[in-house]
Each structure stands twice: as C-alpha cells, then as structure tokens.
C-alpha cells in the first residue's frame, strides 16, 4: 500500500485545521472553556495541551470504533452515544493513569481533564471526521491539527486578556463581551490565512 498521498493529505488537513478551518474560530466549538478559562496564560496552556492530547487520541479511537463496529453492524445513528461514552471513558482513564504514574503531569493537566469531557470541540471533531469521511491517517492529522488550533487560539486570547486586565472597558462589555470581540478580531486574522491553502 502506498501511503505517500495519504500522508501528504493528512499534512494539508492538519495545517488547514490549525489555521484556515480553526475549530474554535471558524466552527465555534469549545467556546465555553475558551471564554471561561482564558484569564491566565498558565492555565490556558495546561488546558490547551490537555485538549491537543485528548482530541488526537479520541479522534483515532472513535474512527476505529465507527468504522470497525458501527458501520459493520449498521448502527451509525448510535454514534452520538458511543462517541460521548468513549470520550468520557478515555478522559477518566487518562486521569487515573496520570494520577498513578506521573504526579507532575497530573498536577499540570489533571484539573482540566474533567472539564474536557463536556468540551464540544472534542465531540465536534469526531463528528466532522465522520461527516467528511476521512481515512485513518488523515484523521490523525485532523485531530492533531484541530487540537493545536484550539491551543493556539486560547493561548493568544489568554495573552491578550492579561494585557487587558488594567484597561478601562465599558461596564456592559466586561467579561464575555470584550472576549467575544477579541475572538472576532482573531477570527478575522485567521481568515487571512485562507490564501495559504488555495487551489487545494
């Protein structure tokens, strides 16, 4: 089997998931933690790293389960329930493993893991992967790219919000309001990348 074109497609999908089709700025997935946990760069980094890891792994797991179990049994409509169970179980497992073997990582990422189960970006990426009919290798690229895109967006936002802390903002716009406006500007900036992948 020649994997060359597969891998290059996975690479393109990955880059476009980071920049032009950013899961947060173009598809609005994972907005709640994005608004809630973006006050400090440090916590944002932790959450972002956890999202990259969980998103990549659950995308792969869900691909395997969808194509080797659900499609064979003709139970595609069952995917919502199965995906969410897999995500929840995976997150729980990672939490236990980290707690047992790596207290350092557990301290860094552990608190964010329960939050991730309800992060729509994770389920959303799995659903997109099914709708767009990606192959397994492309799915790896897509999962990693989406996670990385989310990570970049929340990092940038946390950096901006730290600078913003001392500024005078109209009372009604404080909190979510100003964050949404910044997110809009970031989405505009990320739209500028769309030329990078033109002609694909």
């Amino acid at each position, binding site marked *: 089997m020649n994997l060359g074109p597969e891998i290059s497609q996975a690479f393109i999908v990955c880059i476009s998931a980071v920049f032009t089709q950013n899961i947060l700025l173009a*598809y*609005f997935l994972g907005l709640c933690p994005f*608004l809630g946990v973006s006050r400090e760069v440090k916590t944002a980094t932790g959450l972002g790293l956890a999202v990259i890891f969980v998103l990549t792994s659950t995308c792969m797991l869900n691909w395997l389960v969808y194509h080797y179990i659900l499609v064979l049994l003709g139970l595609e*409509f069952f995917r*919502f329930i199965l995906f969410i169970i897999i995500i929840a179980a995976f997150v729980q497992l990672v939490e236990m493993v980290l707690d047992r073997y790596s207290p350092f990582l557990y301290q860094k990422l552990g608190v964010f893991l329960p939050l991730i189960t309800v992060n*729509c970006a994770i389920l959303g990426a799995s659903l997109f992967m099914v709708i767009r009919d990606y192959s397994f290798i492309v799915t790896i690229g897509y999962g990693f790219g989406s996670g990385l895109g989310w990570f970049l967006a929340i990092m940038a936002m946390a950096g901006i919000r730290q600078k913003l802390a001392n500024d005078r903002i109209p009372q009604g*716009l404080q909190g979510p*309001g100003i964050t949404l406006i910044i997110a809009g500007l970031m989405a505009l900036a990320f739209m500028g990348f769309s030329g990078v992948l033109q002609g694909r």
Partner: protein
Amino acid sequence: MKSETRKIISDGLWNNNPIFRQVLGICSTLAVTNLLANTVVMCVALIFTLSLSAATVSMLRRFTPRNIRMMVETLIIAFYVIVVDLVLKAYWPEMSTNLGPYVGLIITNCIVMGRCEACGNINPPAHSFLDGLFNALGYSFVLLIIATIRELFGMGTFLGYPMPYFSGPYWDKWIVMVAPPGAFFTLAVVTWVFRSFEIRRENKSK
C-alpha cells in the same frame, strides 16, 4: 405556585438568561446563526431536547446513583438528540446536511447539561420541565435576534426573502457578517446592549 411559575419564566427569559447572563451553550449554535431558517430549526431542536431531558432527569432523580449522575444525564440528552437527528434526516434531509454535526453537538451544549444539573436534579418534573422550556426560549430569542441581524446585513434577506432596502443597490452587503467573525461581533454587541439595560436598572433601584 403562581408566583413560583412566574419566577421561573422571568429567570429563564431575562434575569438569568442562558446567553447574556450565564454565557453557556453558545458553542454549537452560534455556527448556524448565519441563516435565520437554520437557527429556527436549531432552536426548536434545542427547546425539545432541553425541556424533555430536564423533565426526564428529574423523574429519574431518585433512582440515579450520585456518582454516575453525569453519565446518566448525558445518555438521556443523547437519546433526545438522536430522536431529533433521525426525524430531521427522515423528513428534511437538506436541513440535516445544512446543520451538519451541530445537531449532534446539542449533547455537549453546556446549557442542557447545566439546567439538568442545576434544576432537574433537585426539583419535581413539572418544575424542571418549565425551567428547561423557558431557559431554552430565553436562549432561542437571543439567537433569533443574532441570526436576523446577520442574515439581513450579510445577505440582505430575511428568511430567504429579499428585503426592500438591504438587497438593493444602495446596500453594500457586509460579507463579514455571514462569515465566522460576524457571529462573534454580533453576539458581543447583543450581550453589551442587554447587559447595559440590566446595569441601568440596577443603578436606578439603588
């Protein structure tokens, strides 16, 4: 009882509005606000899911062990979402493709989980049902405002029908309004306006 019902209604629609007070569950639905028709369908789906799953969670609240509560709630929500998804696929396939994965994403919509946790867990079914219903309605009306603004400014139409001034040659269509950034800007402005009302009212009552 009367005043309790009234409190649920006013909390859901305004005082504790899911979007501009709780800022929950905007993820999956902002994406479909570029067209009013999509938003209406999405809102109906959300109203159905939220009110019924809150009622179901509340009916089962005495039989659910505490430590697997979240999982049970997710499964109940997923059940209703699957019903919505299958009905859409069967009777309105174009709309189903338009909405893409966003119908399925109602499962992880924080407002559904949030209301099941905050209200369905403690209160009797009728109360939870009303709470879910009015939270969903409060959520929907803000989204419908956003969708109307985006469609009108971005495409010059309302529910697909061209509007007199906005679709004419005098109106240069704001493409950015139908693109993703438009959703963020519109939601920010709507939040700003509604919060300002609140702040003014609070200042007056002081």
